[in-house]
């Protein structure tokens, strides 16, 4: 913690003991910016997938559909069963217009649906705690033959699982990006340390401790990574915010609520990774160069 505070407060003279290296500095900033940009995109996708998964899980977990055979006239009986079942908040038969609207994408508007044996659908909303699914299914099987009670679990669960997997992949990608930032900073720091052997030697001869020498390199790379990541995050957020609204999942892509904390802390995380990577590289190098 003290090392981090020293780093933030800084020592202008200590910073200057390492000669400036223009190309390495620019490359470090550039790579950190690119990585942060990619991380923001992955983060936006991951958070959006998470939100979609949560919403689907919440919304669909409440809703179920009862499908009555077309030739039956058991609608009132079915509604009565549902209304008297504990755990059912509401039960409503879909109107003719609603059923037609559901079928229109498949049959078009020209077909006379009255001529077709269309099953009657009943929308069922669960209470908290919900109904006993097995018991309800058994009751419908016994009292209204042909009735099918669908709690959407068969297609809801794979969708939610897929969305959760997208979220997980996003998180893994972000971890890999940060690992790449760490590896890149390590390589750049090692190159810088190797190029400054004579500087390290002079510093050692005038009584510099390892932590002083390391600090000069660590501060430099930490600031570069932090600045680069900030540029990348700002660019990434702008791109995410101006994405065209394609509807569906695409309408969800972006940051919302507490999710905004991630792009805000991402430059700090990048700087933290750079701090640890450079410090480790510097201490290892200084140990070798006794």
């Amino acid at each position: 913690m003290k090392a981090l505070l020293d780093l933030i407060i800084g020592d202008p003279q200590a910073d200057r003991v390492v000669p400036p290296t223009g190309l390495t500095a620019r490359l470090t900033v550039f790579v950190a910016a690119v990585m942060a940009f990619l991380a923001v995109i992955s983060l936006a996708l991951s958070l959006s997938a998470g939100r979609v998964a949560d919403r689907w899980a919440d919304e669909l977990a409440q809703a179920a559909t009862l499908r009555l055979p077309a030739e039956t006239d058991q609608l009132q009986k079915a509604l009565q069963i549902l209304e008297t079942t504990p755990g059912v908040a509401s039960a409503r038969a879909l109107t003719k217009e609603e059923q037609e609207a559901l079928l229109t994408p498949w049959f078009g508007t020209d077909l006379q649906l009255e001529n077709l044996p269309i099953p009657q659908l009943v929308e069922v909303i669960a209470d908290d705690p919900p109904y006993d699914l097995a018991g309800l299914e058994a009751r419908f099987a016994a009292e209204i033959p042909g009735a099918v009670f669908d709690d959407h679990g068969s297609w809801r669960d794979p969708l939610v699982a897929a969305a959760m997997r997208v979220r997980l992949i996003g998180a893994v990608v972000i971890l890999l990006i940060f690992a790449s930032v760490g590896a890149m900073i390590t390589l750049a720091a090692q190159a810088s340390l190797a190029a400054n052997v004579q500087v390290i030697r002079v510093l050692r001869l005038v009584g510099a401790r390892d932590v002083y020498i390391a600090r000069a390199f660590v501060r430099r790379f930490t600031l570069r990574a932090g600045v680069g990541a900030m540029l990348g995050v700002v660019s990434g957020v702008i791109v995410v915010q101006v994405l065209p609204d394609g509807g569906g999942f695409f309408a969800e892509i972006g940051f919302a609520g507490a999710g905004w904390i991630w792009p805000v802390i991402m430059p700090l995380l990048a700087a933290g990774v750079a701090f640890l990577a450079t410090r480790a590289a510097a201490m290892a190098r200084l140990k070798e160069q006794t």
Partner: protein
Amino acid sequence: MIELDKVSYGHGGAALFSQLSLTLVPGSFQFLTGPSGAGKTTLLRLCYADLRAQRGKVRLFGQDANTLDRDAVAMSRRRIGVVHQDCQFLDHLSVAENIALPLSVADRAAEASENLKELLAWVGLSKQSAQRPPELSGGERQRAALARAVIMSPDVIIADEPTGNVDWEMSQRLLALLVELNKMGKTVLIATHDLAMIRSLKSDVDARVLRLKDGLLTTAGAVL
């Protein structure tokens, strides 16, 4: 202060010297002479723990140098001012910043401003303080190196051929600075092969002359 006790050191299996003992008493002034390749620089580097003895013990301010970790070595070096033959500087910093470097690495940079002015004047580099080391002449570099070596007011000053790259007049000025420091109580060890320089100081300082040759260190005493 610095004590070498039966120290051996060699390169590639060939012994440079063995069983060598030397004690630097506080306030003393020593010249270390000997032919090129005799191991003078190696002996000096052992004295400030830049090298570790292969056998025997080197004690820096009472501590066994072989058991010191890197940070402890760094702390010891703050009490030893070193003037190198090739005057190693950080070329991207100004002369003043280079001279103040030991204070900076010791987190004592705040003390630099007043001390630095005096020191620059003392070594005659006030006008060159903003220049970069590569812009200095050989003599100016040697004086800057001496200023850097003494800015921490070290207990010991070790100089390796400090007059090797300067003319006679400049070498006399540099030696006068070292004699002045010795009179202020500092222990001084100078490696040189220039006997004329030693003779010129005979009347100014009570110096011990050590000779390193064929792996043996002998004291020449007052007879040169």
